[in-house]
């Protein structure tokens, strides 16, 4: 086994992995999408895909990391074969590209936390801070600050990650529970709960709701990103895989549900007439423009606004830490010492994240391209597991030493049939949907949110990774002739 570091306990692993899974997507995207897709109907589809996408892929990632004890590139080389180093490299590239702009998002959260603490928010003019801050040089400073905090944790290795997770994740849960209780006890909050939970059974036949629910699972659980694989490297030998995967999936979605209750109850209690406008304002619009206004009209609103941005900052930073660790681990497998790898990742993220900090169109382009790229990452995990042998992976690793649950053959079917179909349908749907946003520039690679820009950037990345496959396999840490496939 090449990994020398280990989590000190199961709870260290579980809390760090929950920190990875719970991010801004749970707090700022889930409530918006649930509201836009009719509440109760969407929730049914969302629970279904937790079991048909997120948890099965989380099990694969835990199994790959535990078996290979290498980062994404090395794990694919060792378990799937030397010809498939590019697959692990794609997963690493996609997660790292997201890290570059996610650090910017984390910086925004820190800036708003500062604004809430100092009383600068909500300000006289709604959205004034966002107008002056988003895409400005100040966002570059907060990007560097957020990155510095995450890098500072990864510098101390797995024990550093574990120590931080053990503090921040319980605090995050407490903060979100407090905010949700405050929200549902506001006069008029019942309308928000009613909106969130009332189903429209006819809408279950609407394919868009199912695709949105699948997308939400793909984006906010962290399944198929390579991040769980990275943390699983540091599991103990007799550590459980399946129960931990279910625990993370249900824990993550528990947090989303709390966030949905908190946001929608607040919106309906305080601004019932503007609810359509608020939930339609996009992630940044809802969080950075509307939420401060809503808290301003709430008793003890400033305190709860601080809690909200503190929770958002904790969620963002614990996810950012896992992304920094993923890239660091790949470099460590290639022969870098941890501290040298951390410095390289920090400098790379600082430089490559800077355009997203300074330009909102660039940020949106990267969020679009690599967000959809995650669906390809999920597909590659399913393909990798199939090449290794899903039944073998289930028998030898998933249900292997330390397993606290027994996974049946249903998992093989989900992984071999459903996950690939879901990934392909999602990718095609998103690219096709982009036609509606910009019909004339749909295939234009220079249009920021087009199918053309996705295909162009993916194309360049895939050609480069395929061309470098042998070199990647040599530098993966798997060693010559060590693969198990």
């Amino acid at each position, binding site marked *: 086994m090449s990994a020398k570091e280990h989590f000190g306990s*199961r709870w260290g692993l*579980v809390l760090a992995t929950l920190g990875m899974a719970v991010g801004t997507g749970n707090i700022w995207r889930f409530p918006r999408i649930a509201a836009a897709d009719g509440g*109760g109907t969407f*929730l*049914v589809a969302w*629970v279904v895909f937790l079991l048909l996408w997120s948890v099965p892929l989380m099990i694969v990632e835990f199994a790959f990391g535990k078996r290979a004890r290498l980062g994404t590139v090395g794990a694919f080389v060792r378990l799937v074969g030397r010809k498939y180093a590019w697959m692990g490299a794609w997963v690493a590239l996609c997660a790292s590209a997201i890290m570059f702009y996610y650090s910017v998002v984390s910086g925004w959260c820190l800036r708003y936390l500062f604004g809430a603490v100092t009383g600068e928010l909500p300000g006289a003019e709604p959205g004034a801070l966002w107008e002056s801050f988003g895409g400005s040089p100040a966002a570059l400073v907060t990007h560097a600050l957020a990155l510095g905090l995450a890098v500072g944790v990864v510098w101390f290795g797995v024990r550093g990650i574990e120590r931080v997770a053990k503090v921040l994740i319980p605090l995050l849960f407490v903060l979100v529970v407090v905010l949700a209780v405050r929200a549902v006890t506001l006069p008029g909050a*019942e309308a928000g*709960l*009613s909106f*969130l*939970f*009332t*189903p429209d059974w006819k809408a279950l036949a609407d394919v868009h709701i199912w695709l949105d629910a699948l997308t939400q699972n793909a984006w906010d659980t962290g399944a198929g990103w390579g991040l769980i694989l990275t943390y699983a490297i540091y599991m*103990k*030998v*007799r550590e*459980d895989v399946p*129960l*931990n995967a*279910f*625990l993370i999936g*249900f*824990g993550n*979605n*528990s947090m989303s*549900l709390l966030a949905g209750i908190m946001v929608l109850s607040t919106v309906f209690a305080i601004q019932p007439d503007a609810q359509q406008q608020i939930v339609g304002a996009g992630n940044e619009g809802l969080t950075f423009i509307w939420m401060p206004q809503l808290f301003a009209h709430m008793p003890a609103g400033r305190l709860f606004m601080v809690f909200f941005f503190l929770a958002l900052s904790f969620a963002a930073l614990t996810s950012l830490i896992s992304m920094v660790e993923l890239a660091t681990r790949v470099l460590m497998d290639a022969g870098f010492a941890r501290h040298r790898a951390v410095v390289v990742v920090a400098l790379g993220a600082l430089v490559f994240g800077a355009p997203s900090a300074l330009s909102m169109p660039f940020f949106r382009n990267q969020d679009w391209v690599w967000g959809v790229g995650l669906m390809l990452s999920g597909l590659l995990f399913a393909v990798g597991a199939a090449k290794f042998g899903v039944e073998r992976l289930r028998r030898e690793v998933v249900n292997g030493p330390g397993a*606290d*649950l027994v996974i049946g053959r249903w998992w093989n079917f989900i992984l071999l049939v459903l996950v690939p179909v879901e990934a392909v349908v999602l990718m095609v749907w998103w690219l096709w949907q982009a036609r509606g946003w910009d019909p004339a520039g749909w295939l234009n690679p220079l249009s920021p949110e087009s199918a053309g820009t996705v295909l162009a950037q993916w194309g360049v990345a895939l050609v480069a990774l395929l061309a470098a496959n042998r070199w990647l396999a040599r530098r993966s840490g798997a060693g010559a002739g060590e693969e198990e496939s």
Partner: protein
Amino acid sequence: MSALAVVMMVVICGTIWGGFATLLARALMRERGKGGEGD
């Protein structure tokens, strides 16, 4: 809130939060059963 909304709230929250609590309890019991066994 309508009766349907209340039923859905109980079903969805029960599934997600109840599922999480049950899994957490099971993991706690397994860890207690292992009694600090290392590797």
